């Protein structure tokens, strides 16, 4: 069996005062690799051990300041450069609104990175088995004793000298701690890993089943699910399972009047003009004619378009053919379209189309006036 390697020599004390004086004497004696183990923090230990103030504070400061910077840069970039938005009339970069986020990020970066760096650099983790673990010494200093350990790594270490020195401190007992013969990693043992995996599986399954079957309660959804048929939904009540029923034959949508001659180029039959040429109707017809018809047909129906030759000009509305069209035929052309003229039924309503027909009749009569018409016009009072 190979010779055991010494980790260090420990000494146990009974009360806090003697550990303080032991720590003072140890630090004075010039050892550098040594430590004190106590069940709870003891006031004044830092001074007694002559420990210099920790450098960890600087880490916290730097990480905190970088949190501040990151937060401000992030909000400056997102809120005033990349996607500026006016919120409550405030400037794009409005510092008071950014302070809470800056504060939070400062705090979280300072604390989280302090803990991380403390573990990684100051504690020297991951160290999974310290030689002091599982020793009688460690059990005692976790309970009611106070201990000093001088490590063998110390340049001044000499087993007999250290033992004599520790004896001079009047301890309860002195122990030599050896490194374990073989480095063991209890956390990698199959048994431990198996227990870990089993625990994980049982806990996740248990949680899943408990929350999804045993304890499942439908959360209140503000009456969003109601026992009625809504559009597009399925219904078991009907044989074809369609919640929406087909309308009865001959059903017409409200406000819709069917036009029976749609698609016929030269209908044999047309509708009769239902509207009367009142002043209001003619004014409506004029307005709609100027809006929808005049771009191609010209302001007075002469076929002089404003299209500058982009399309073929339509023929004049004052030809004998056009004047001999019945009202229903003009209405049909507007509704159905003719040659390159499309249907205007979607832009111009039924009443408006009839009003335009009446207005076209007025234009036709005015453009082709005879003497009788002139006499008639003289007799009426024009305002």
């Amino acid at each position: 069996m190979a010779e055991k390697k010494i980790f260090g020599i420990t000494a146990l004390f009974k009360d806090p005062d003697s550990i303080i004086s032991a720590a003072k004497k140890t630090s004075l004696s010039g050892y550098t690799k040594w430590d004190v183990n106590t069940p709870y923090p003891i006031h004044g230990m830092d001074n007694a051990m002559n420990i210099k103030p920790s450098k960890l504070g600087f880490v916290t400061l730097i990480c905190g300041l970088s949190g501040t910077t990151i937060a401000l840069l992030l909000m400056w970039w997102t809120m005033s450069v990349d996607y500026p938005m006016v919120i409550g009339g405030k400037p794009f970069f409005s510092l008071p609104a950014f302070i809470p986020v800056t504060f939070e990020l400062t705090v979280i970066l300072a604390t989280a990175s302090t803990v991380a760096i403390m573990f990684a650099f100051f504690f020297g983790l991951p160290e999974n088995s310290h030689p002091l673990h599982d020793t009688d010494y460690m059990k005692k200093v976790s309970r009611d004793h106070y201990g000093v350990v001088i490590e063998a790594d110390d340049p001044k270490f000499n087993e007999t000298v250290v033992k004599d020195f520790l004896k001079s401190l009047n301890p309860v007992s002195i122990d030599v701690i050896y490194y374990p013969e073989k480095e063991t990693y209890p956390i990698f043992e199959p048994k431990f890993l198996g227990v870990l995996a089993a625990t994980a599986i049982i806990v996740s399954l248990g949680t899943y089943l408990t929350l999804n079957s045993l304890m499942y309660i439908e959360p209140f959804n503000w009456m969003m699910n109601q026992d009625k048929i809504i559009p597009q939904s399925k219904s078991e009540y009907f044989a074809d399972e369609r919640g929406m029923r087909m309308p009865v034959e001959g059903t017409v949508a409200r406000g819709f009047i069917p036009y029976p001659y749609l698609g016929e180029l030269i209908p044999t039959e047309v509708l009769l003009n239902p509207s009367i040429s009142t002043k209001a109707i003619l004014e409506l017809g004029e307005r709609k004619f100027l809006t929808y018809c005049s771009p191609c047909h010209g302001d007075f129906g002469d076929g002089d378009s404003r299209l500058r030759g982009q399309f073929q000009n339509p023929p004049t509305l004052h030809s004998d053919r056009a004047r001999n069209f019945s009202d229903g035929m003009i209405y049909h052309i507007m509704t159905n379209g003719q040659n390159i003229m499309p249907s205007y039924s979607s832009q111009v309503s039924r009443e408006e189309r009839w009003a335009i027909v009446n207005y076209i009749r007025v234009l036709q009569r005015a453009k082709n006036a005879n003497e009788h018409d002139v006499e008639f016009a003289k007799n009426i009072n024009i305002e």
Partner: protein
Amino acid sequence: MTEINLTYNKKELPTRYTRLGVLLLAIGLVFGIVAFITDQNRAVFNYLIAYSFMISIGLGSLFLIALEYIVGAVWSVPIRRIVEFFAATIPFLAILVIPLLFNMHELFHWSHEEAVAGDEILEGKAPYLNVPFFIIRVFVLIGIWSLFYFFFIRNSKKQDTTKDQNLTKLNIKLSAVFIPVFAISITITAIDWLMSIEPHWFSTIFGVYFFSGTVIASLAAVTLATVLLKENGYLHPSITNDHLYSLGGLMFAFINFWAYIAFSQFMLIWYADLPEESFWFLQKWNGNWAVFSILLIIIHFVVPYAALLAHPAKKNPKRLKFIAVWLLFAHLFDLFWLVMPESNQLSEGYSFSWIDLVFPIAIVGVLMLIFKMKAKKENLLPIGDPKLKRGLEFHL
């Protein structure tokens, strides 16, 4: 561990402190009276600042005493007498308040009946903001504080001779009653004296804001006195820098608390931007008051925060002495910023007047005289307190 010597030899403070205090007070009094004659409005507003500062020191100290008892603090026991001496300001408030009550019409817009009539907001507040009820509140509150002060101090003093532990228990019970009373009364005080000079404005956090400044001021006064007395050897030798560290830590905490509260108040009003609230901050942004507003952040938060951030800074007596004086000034500046822009003659911007310097001189004089008077009568160490030995042994 070295045994702590608990025998206490009383050491008198030198009489030159009294002379200096009398001198400062005399200067303050003479110039104060001249100020009241030459420029009554400005003098009253300055006097209000001084009076609020005295409330801060006295009431804040009483709060610190109660805090020590209720949390069972040990480290502060050896310096509790210093806090008690500062708390002795409280009974004097009843005298100090009188010049303000005679000049209420200069100070409070709501005290003019013709101004209240026809003003819907002020009419609504009239059941609370009226002269008789105001005066009743002022004296009832000073009475309650004085009563608590009297009981706290009597028990503490009695303990010096009887060494009766039950007196500590009695004071703990007293603290439990005092702290809620303190919370309500300091809110009322802040509303009455500092918020009602602009009676149209309201802020629910204002009492807490004044409280945070109050604790900073009293802690700074206690720290300054402790460091000065310690340097000149009047304190027990076992009172070390570790005790100072606790004072420094508390100051640091309350600087942050003040900044938190002040910013909370500002941000909500700034964000909502309702005219009924935001005009108060706009008033403090008028003309060169904007410079004062920016300076307030730097003086009251940035500088002391940076100065006290590091661990060694909180236990360095020189640093603490400097920062204590700084914080006392900062609290004065805070009150100045709260009060002065509301004065009609300064609403457009600040212009210097010698009157602004007079009353702070008087404050220092009054505080020195009260401290000296109490120090002459009482021990600087609560020698009968059962926690004293542990308090002296305190180490970080």
